[in-house]
């Protein structure tokens, strides 16, 4: 989700990412925003994103996260994986008794 957000919206700071995820999910995913930061760190260590200091909307120092090429590749792979999984699960839900007879 973090990768997709960054992919769509370009560089963002932590708060921005948290807000977007909340908005996109329609406030359904209202977890503690703090838990985002360990995830960001992990992604950065894996090389999927990088971060730089920049100025935020109200002109304060904030850290902006940006997707790397590697991250984009990872997003692609994971999107495919997810779509495949979702498709498989979807097929199970569409399954009716007469389809197998």
């Amino acid at each position, binding site marked *: 989700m973090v990768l997709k957000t960054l992919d769509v919206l370009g560089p963002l*700071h*932590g*708060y921005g990412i*948290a*807000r977007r995820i909340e908005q996109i999910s329609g406030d359904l995913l*209202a*977890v*503690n*925003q*703090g*838990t985002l*930061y*360990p995830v960001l*760190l*992990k992604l950065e*260590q*894996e*090389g999927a994103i990088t971060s730089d200091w920049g100025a*935020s*909307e*109200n002109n*304060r*120092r*904030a*850290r902006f996260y940006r997707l790397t090429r590697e991250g984009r590749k990872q997003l692609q792979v994971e999107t495919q994986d997810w779509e495949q999984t979702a498709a498989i699960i979807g097929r199970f839900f569409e399954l009716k008794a007469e389809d197998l007879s």
Partner: protein
Amino acid sequence: MKSLRRFFERLFSSGTRQTQEERLREEIEEHIALQTAENLRAGLSPVEARRQAMLKFGGVEAMKQDYRAERGLPLIEDLLQDLRFALRLLRKSPGFTAVAVATLAIAIGANAVVFSVLNALILNPLHVPNAESLYAIQHGNEASLSQSYPDYLDLRNRNRTLEGLAAANGAIAGLDAGSNPSRVWVYEVSGNYFDVMGIQPYLGRLIHDSDEHGPNSAPYIVLSYAYWHNHFEDDRSVVGRVVQVNKHPFTIVGVAPPDFHGTLVFFNPDFYMPIVNAEQVEPQNHLNERGHRWVFMTLGHVKSGVTLAQAVADLNSIGSYLEKTYPKDDDKRSFTLARPSLYGDLLGKPMRAFMTGLMLLAGLILIAACANLGSLFAARAADRSREVALRLALGARRSRVLRQLFTEALMLSVMGGIVGICGSVVLLRGLSAWQPFARWPIYLAVNPDANVYGVAVLLTVASGFLFGAVPVRQVLHTDPYEIVKSGSLWKVGRRMPVRDLVLVVEIAICAVLVTSSLVAVRGVVRSMHSNFGFEPHNAMLADTDLSMAGHSGESVAEMQKRMIHALETIPAVKSVGLVDAAPLAAGGFTGALAFTDETTDLRPGNAAARAYMFSISPEYFDAAGTPLLSGRVFGWHDDKNSRPVAVVNQEFARMVFGSMAKAMGNYFKKRDGTRVQVVGIVGDGKYSSVTEAPQPAMFVPILQSPSSQTYLVVRSSRDAGQLIAAIRDTVRGLDAGLPLYVEPWSQALDAPLFGPRMATLSLGVLGAMGAMLSITGIFGMAAYAVSKRLRELGIRMALGAQRKEVLQAALGRALKLLSFGSAAGLLLGILASRVLASIVYQATSRDPLVLTGTLLTMALLGLIATWIPAQRALSVDPAILLREE
């Protein structure tokens, strides 16, 4: 790839903690500021806006913890943190650290040393390929590996279960490589010896079967690596050089590899020569005598696929064939197989038992050390109960607290292990270089190998966990709420009976060891001044073998007389005697069967006594200081042409004749039927060991029973150094080519006294270790008791208790255990000294000096151990203590 990259990032980030922490703080602040701003826009009051933002963010500290966990490698970071903390703690209590490290160092070092010796002696003794299938043939009815040469040949040629059978015999020879002739030790080996062992030469070639073509056909020698290194300065051109061995020319054909020392583990020969040439170094030629077992050991590999039982059965079928074919030469020939490295069961059995016992003891010492450190640790954990409770209350997990305790324990054990291993390496170096007997090439390389280091490291880690585990229950049962609230310490009143029992046993063992070592020391001191049947002081032994200088037959006796007369002319020499084997100095005594005059069937079973037989010159008793009780000493006129005579000792007279009176002037028979007349009787003496019971002995004229290998006994009160030089010069004046070994008789006693001295030394060392363990044990217990009851003691003092009462309250239990353990140990020690009596001369514990010594030692131990806790108990300041709580 991804996870690897992450691992390095994490590893690296451990170093940049500060900036990372800063960055996180800033990010969180920014996040909350943004959220607050948004909340404000939504119309909340500034305070409420910030509160909502914080709520939405969640637990900041918990998130930081997670963040840190993601960022670095928590395991390693925690470990480093724990190590730093442990180091700080240990530095704060140097006394505890020193005691703990020293205890562990000694316990682990002792284990490493004992294991190295065990490894070198028993587990991995001979450095030959396939050592596990190498066996020596042992006689079934006695622990002896020796065979006659014809029997060896039959065993070698007729067996179908051994991969070749080799023979080896140790002897001493005179080697003349151009300069001074010197006495050297030689292995006489069968031609197939090196091939059966699977040994490759270091230089040149070894001896092979193809060299043997009958007696004296193979004048070749192979040098041992050590002898080549020390005496030929690694000169590679020695191969092919001709040297003189007992005046016979031999060619050096090669050098054996460095790690091969023959097949008796502690005996290191200087060179190897073919056994078919044995006649040239032995006094007599025994190659054809089937009745004389002189070949020291025969050994070979059991064929693969053959069980031990099958091989033994095969050998015994040859044995029964030999018994039937040659009934006269030897009565019984049943065989078993045994390990050659410690000469079969003769040394192997006692050594294995001894080393196993020692290893067990060392293990016990380590366990006791761990128990002691465990109680010390428990005491420290009790002192730190508040700290632990506080950490728990602040949210530390119990596993985290425990991990810190284990880190501390392991750090101590690793420090102790390092010191212990270093110490043991130094000790083992010394032990490897140690040659206990100047005369014999006896030493053992016990340098630690990978096995030893492995065991030491394993023990180190295991002991760390062992004593670190002691306070675990305390921590697990800590109730932070209770402790922080009331400040109460651990639940008082747990009596720890197991730990008390361990301590009593420790003290008792310590007392036993102290008692035994005192008994042993007294015994050794006494044995130096006991009656040996001769006077070792002011007597010099000059060991010569005339065959080394090429003397044989008639010229031997002639030369011996000339040597005696020449030495008598040295100023201040009182008398000079000659004996073929000096009591308590030489090995290889001649034994002779003595029968009563009436016996006609001279089978070994009918003998009245098996006596030591010494061939002596007429002046021997005078020179040795052996008192003549009755009759006469024979003279030079008692030679081959006169009738056989003997002087016997009291024990001989009693066993063969019944009494001294009946013995005088009467006859006994030797095995060959010769009738020998007793012309004199001398006092009993010690012959091969200081603790032996009175043994029968006979002394016969050297002219009637000649020997070229003899000891000259020179009695003189002159300074030893001058006398030795004078003896050397005199003998060299007679024959410059005769190797000579001179030492004071009292010094030669080192060999028979080796056992008792070693026993005393090892008891002393064990006693010291036991004492140390008792001290740390009592100290740990007393310290624990004091710290547990510190507040109670403070209250007592505040209420006006005297110092004496305070001490009693604090240390009464420890002292009670000490006296209980000491009493038990003393009793056991008195019983144990009966066992000691078999090793140490006249060992008895019913000796006021020993009893007082033990009591004093134990009291001293108690004093040392309780000193620090007592000081702490007395220095309690009730005002401070009570205010603090």
